[in-house]
């Protein structure tokens, strides 16, 4: 048992496009300590989403080792990785990935359903989470009845459903106004303070500065890890 939540050793992800090889990740080694708050920045196409997917056990690297809680996930079976995703990892997708036929509440309930949480408990927690992301009045709306920012917040609430130890958020504030953005960032700070490990992809420096450090990706390579000395604190309106 290490105190790293996630450990990446020389991780590569390559795609063969005809005679051209695309290196989405090109030898990334990174340790994400437990309870840390890390931001990931980089130009479009630099491999940020790919990194998140690999860390979240959604994608398997072409080469290298990914350890989550000290376990090499590349050796796990599909079912074991699914179980790990189910109770350890909360994922906020860049493209939200909500279930189109289900209401906001049902979408948030879904990860709990798969974990076998009882109906009333599920519902209470879903309502509570949606309230925390400011959607108490949109419980019964389906994704296509919600704005982009509202969908993003449903996706965030869903990621938190099983109280995961590791929260991976791909552009979680990309569609939000500054006020809602501040609320989400405050929520992240609370979660981080409660001991959750956070990994957040963002294009915005101000969002990234809420983290303890910023990982800069460029062309699939880890360019720099920048330590933030003056962290912004959402709760105190430092922006």
């Amino acid at each position, binding site marked *: 048992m290490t105190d790293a939540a996630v450990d990446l050793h020389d991780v590569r992800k390559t795609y063969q496009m005809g005679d051209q090889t695309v290196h989405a990740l090109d030898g990334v080694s990174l340790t994400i300590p437990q309870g840390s708050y890390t931001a990931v920045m980089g130009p479009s196409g630099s491999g940020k989403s790919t990194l998140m997917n690999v860390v979240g056990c*959604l994608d398997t690297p072409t080469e290298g080792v990914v350890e989550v809680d000290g376990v090499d996930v590349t050796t796990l079976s599909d079912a074991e990785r699914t179980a790990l995703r*189910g109770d350890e990892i909360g*994922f906020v997708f860049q493209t939200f*990935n909500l*279930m189109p036929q*289900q209401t906001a509440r049902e979408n948030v309930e879904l990860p709990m359903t*798969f974990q*076998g949480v009882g109906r009333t408990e599920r519902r209470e927690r879903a309502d509570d989470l949606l309230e925390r992301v400011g959607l108490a009045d949109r419980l019964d709306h389906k994704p296509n009845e919600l704005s982009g920012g509202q969908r993003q917040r449903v996706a965030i609430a869903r990621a938190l459903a*099983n109280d995961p130890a590791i929260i991976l958020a791909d552009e979680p504030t990309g569609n939000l106004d500054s006020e809602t953005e501040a609320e989400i960032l405050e929520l992240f700070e609370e979660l981080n303070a409660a001991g959750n490990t956070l990994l957040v992809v963002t294009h915005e420096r101000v969002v990234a500065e809420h983290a303890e450090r910023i990982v800069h990706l460029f062309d699939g390579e880890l360019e720099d890890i920048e330590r933030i000395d003056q962290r912004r604190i959402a709760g105190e309106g430092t922006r």
Partner: protein
Amino acid sequence: MKLGESVRMSWRAITGHKLRSVLTVLGVVIGVGSVITFVTLGASLQAAIVGDVATSSPEIAVTVGPESQGGPGGGGGGEAVPVFTEHDMAQLREIEHVEAVVPTGQVGIAALGHGNDTVRWPSMTATTRDSFAGDSFQSGGPFEVGANEAVLNPAAATMFAENVSAGEEITVEFAENDTRALVVAGVLNESSGFAAVAASGTPAVYVPTDPFYTTTAESPATGERERAYPQLTIRASSYERVDDVEPLARDYLENESDASQLKPDSYEISLTTNDALVEQIQGILSTFTNFITGVAVISLLVGAIGIANMMLVSVTERTREIGIMKAIGATRRDIVQLFLVESVILGVIGSVIGTLVGLAGGYAAATLIDLPVAFAPEWFAIAVAVGIGVGMLAGIYPAWDAARTDPIDALRHE
């Protein structure tokens, strides 16, 4: 995930994709419905053709005659000996699948008369009401037992100067100075099948054994004098049962019956089935069974492909949703269970509607082309089972396949 949860979520998916669900159900309805329609049509056609061919009932003629002469369809050869007692008849009726045992005996007379016309005639045939089961009458119906009534075949009805019809009287001269009037209860139809005589054009007059038949014998089994007949007809419950009844009846008649003791030693009891007809009908039945099976299998196949196609499209369409579910912790088992429950729900709904549509379709089609409606329920069960089964397989396979792919690939699926 609990089953109740899957049912709730599957129902959600079904009502959430109305058009797709309706199309899938339609696929099952067409599959199951067409099987039931065609099978019903086939069974009705079979019933009609068997009805046309089966002019007589599934019968076994029991006669007694001299050993070497008793050829098939006997009774004509040798002297008619009244050996079959009422006790024998009662015993034969006990055999499984025997519907009736009909006695036939001759009543000797001198002449028959109608109006002013008198015809010299040697005998009348004494029998029971059972012999007319399934026969059709030009006029009237079977006689009453114990009554002074008679039934005529068409040849007998026309042998007098004036034609005889039901309700009229004929006179029977049993012997000189012993003449009685009988009421004609009915006149048989030309095609009606009782005994070969009806068709052969020889006039025949049928009267009830009670009171006209008086030949008796002492039954070795009961020790009493009973009516005894030279010929019996055993009617089985169906053509398929003739082969079951025959050996049992033969065994009884040859080994235990009164007849076996009463007959002269040189005589032999023979049982004759209308082999040609029974075989022909059994042939028709098996031809039709094959035909119906063929039609059912083909329409099941067509239906199954339709159902499978619809389920495949429906699941493939949702690869992305499967990816989402997997990404947030759904196991492959959860996903397969969801689609399984969904396809079972759709399959059951489709099968129920399909059965109703098929029944209505088969009934309408059979009625339209003037067939007696007959159903083949075993195929309904098969159609429903295959409808649901194929829906399940066609639903599970792509769901299982989609659940196996990396969630990231499933999520990229558009």
